[in-house]
């Protein structure tokens, strides 16, 4: 079965600084990868997804992620964060078949003014 590991439970960063949120997955077959964001008291919103093709994926709000098959990673990056980026970020994976979305435990990003 596939699984997702988010290496950092909390990441504090100053406003306008760059940030990287790490995600590693385990699967013996090809997968689809997702990053979701959850603002306080709200549902999950898709930031970006990797299905196939270019390994660098651009999403909403200036975020991007790079799929690295050899390292089984899908790290999320933003070159300059804003206060409004403070939220919980979840990495998730699905197999190529009809299987449910499996989430990591999440990383809480706190942007400090």
């Amino acid at each position, binding site marked *: 079965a596939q699984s*997702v590991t988010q290496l950092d439970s909390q990441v504090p960063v100053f406003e306008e600084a760059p940030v990287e949120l790490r995600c590693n997955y385990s699967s013996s077959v090809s997968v*689809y990868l*997702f990053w*979701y964001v959850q603002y306080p*008291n*709200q*549902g*999950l*919103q*898709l930031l970006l*997804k990797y*299905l196939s093709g270019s390994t660098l994926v651009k999403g909403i709000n200036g975020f991007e992620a790079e799929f690295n098959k050899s390292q089984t990673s899908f790290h999320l990056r933003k070159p300059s964060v804003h206060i409004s980026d403070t939220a919980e970020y*979840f990495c*998730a994976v*699905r*197999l*190529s*078949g*009809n*299987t*449910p*979305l*499996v*989430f*990591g*435990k*999440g990383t809480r990003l706190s942007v400090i003014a």
Partner: protein
Amino acid sequence: EAGVAQSPRYKIIEKRQSVAFWCNPISGHATLYWYQQILGQGPKLLIQFQNNGVVDDSQLPKDRFSAERLKGVDSTLKIQPAKLEDSAVYLCASSLERVSSGELFFGEGSRLTVL
């Protein structure tokens, strides 16, 4: 386009009581999911429906949890009797296709506190 609707947003009950959550997916979305999100953890799938049929309920605690989607549209998740460890946010999501590349659209969740 209206999003996934869930109610109630908040519910507080005592252990051994029962509770029900309702979800109305995005119009036309055949697949519906219920996830449980315990504080500090990622969402965990409870049950997946394709139209009104169950695709995956392997992680649903069937001794106390039940879910239905009778007409293939809205869905109800019930817990009876509730335990303290059921305190969580219950997220409903829907997707357009059954294939795994599809994006899931989430509702705002129903936060359950069991005292």
